[in-house]
């Protein structure tokens, strides 16, 4: 059996600050198999975004952060890699899409120049002409009507939806095995968001890319992910296949979260406890969703 694309086991994270130690992750475990789309759902402050930063190896260098536990990418523990090796993974084997496409594209460079930089991560000696050809193909893949014109544009000359597509094209250009999407499209209009998510889903399916989809929006998760982990205050509370989890939420927190989403069928505004002791109940795992053995 091949190792999962991403395996996280008992990941702890704490920050040392002026008020002493603050625990952010209390030993979370998750895995993503090849070609799988897995969502990590939680509210702000649940620890979902720091998890992404740990996978990218960005938090480990922070002086005040204490990280322990296993993060393995394609069977290799990140902690055992050198900083140079980790750097090579980022933007190449592991790539990321952020919430706000406008702020993640540099306004002073043309899209084409930024694309070239991205492609250099995988192929340092790629010629400008070859890069441009590849970039144009990638933009065509995300249904950008005139790729060459987009490559000559600056980010601010394109709409939010176009920029999001450019970001998706860049993130997938080097054929990464893992794509981390942190609240993609949240800054966009609903109709544009729906289109870009559909596009992203088709593309990752085509390339067999594994995706870690980080979001607070249950509706979006339901439409995008194969499997879902629900995270509450640094603890995974429920894990199951998307259809199972939405049809039969078992953890009190997941239930509250689902109940709190207003329905377009009109059930009125739900009555919800903001904080409940029940939310700290132990992890519920749905049938057939156990964490794999750690090998090696």
């Amino acid at each position, binding site marked *: 059996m091949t190792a999962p694309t991403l395996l996280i086991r008992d990941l702890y994270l704490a920050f040392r600050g002026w008020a002493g130690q603050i625990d952010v992750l209390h030993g979370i475990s998750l895995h993503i198999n090849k070609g799988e789309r897995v969502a990590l759902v939680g*509210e*702000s402050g649940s620890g979902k975004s720091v998890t992404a930063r740990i996978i990218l190896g960005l938090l480990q260098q922070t002086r005040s952060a204490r990280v322990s536990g296993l993060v393995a990418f394609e069977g290799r523990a990140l902690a055992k890699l050198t900083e140079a090796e980790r750097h090579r993974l980022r933007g190449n084997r592991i790539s990321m899409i952020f919430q706000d496409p406008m702020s993640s594209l540099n306004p002073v460079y043309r899209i084409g120049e930024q694309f070239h930089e991205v492609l250099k991560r995988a192929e340092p000696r790629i010629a400008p002409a070859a890069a441009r050809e590849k970039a144009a193909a990638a933009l065509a893949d995300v249904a950008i009507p005139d790729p060459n014109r987009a490559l000559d544009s600056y980010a601010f000359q394109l709409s*939010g939806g176009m920029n999001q597509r450019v970001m998706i094209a860049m993130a997938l250009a080097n054929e990464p095995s893992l794509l981390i999407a942190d609240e993609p499209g949240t800054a966009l*209009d*609903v*109709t*544009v*968001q*729906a289109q870009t998510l559909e596009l992203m889903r088709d593309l990752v399916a085509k390339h067999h890319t594994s995706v870690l989809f980080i979001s*607070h*929006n*249950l*509706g*979006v998760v*339901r*439409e995008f992910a194969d499997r879902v982990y629900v995270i509450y205050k640094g603890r995974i509370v429920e894990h199951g296949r998307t259809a199972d989890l*939405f*049809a039969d939420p078992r953890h009190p927190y997941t239930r*509250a*979260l*689902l*109940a*709190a*989403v*207003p*329905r*377009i*069928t*009109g*059930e*009125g*505004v*739900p*009555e*919800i406890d*903001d904080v409940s002791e029940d939310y700290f109940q132990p992890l519920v795992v749905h049938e057939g969703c156990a964490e794999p053995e750690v090998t090696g």
Partner: protein
Amino acid sequence: MTHLLSLHDVSKIFAQSKHEVRAVDEVSLDVDEGECLAVVGESGSGKSTLANMILGIYPPSIGTISFRGEVLPGKRELAHRRAIQLVQQNPLSSLNPQRSIGASLRLPLDVHGLGERSQRSDRVGQLLEEVGLPADYAGRSPASLSGGQRQRVAIARALACESDLVVLDEPTSALDVLVQARVLKLLNDLRRKRGLTYVFITHDLSVVRNIADRVAVFERGRLVELNPTGKVFSDPDHAYTRRLIGAVPVVTAEEVRLRNHLMKKENVSA
């Protein structure tokens, strides 16, 4: 019967370097006392411009806005300012980080001379309790409050003016879903208790479905649909409304059915 708020052929034109932009284009609509009217649209739909005109931040370029049958002048008097209040989207920026919660809540009381001077700090405490916060939060700074608590303070500030109409500009879209549910409930309760009128500006149709009496759908500055909420979500008039509802991320099978049903209709009409 006169309406609480009426817009007659209101347009707002912004001059840009080369051309003019009609942010709001010949819009007429009425808001009745005690109702919640949702104003729905995506970015560039003109819904924020509309809100700013209702609030008197700037006057319409063409057309008039009247309040209780009286046409509002471009430069508003204090009494009209008091009558129409605002709750903004981002509670992080809508409260002054350098001033205490109490000072922020006291401002409207002082500006409009509401209540006896000596009783205003008690009034601040009452307002906080009315939105479900302890009265002693008056001494706190905004930074020490959570997003939901800050939004409650912003609501209390709008209540402090004893206004008739509250413009809610995406009041829950920066909040987590559990917090959103509680804030929506608070808004519903306050409306019932105080007989408030809401103009609820949002892009989130699932929220609209559960809080609004009527829905006004805006597309590129134009009012394309204005109907009771039930009608909008069962048999919308405009294709754009259908597209908007079709794009809402939903969580239950019934919702998916409703969405598919509406989208099918669009394909038939197209």
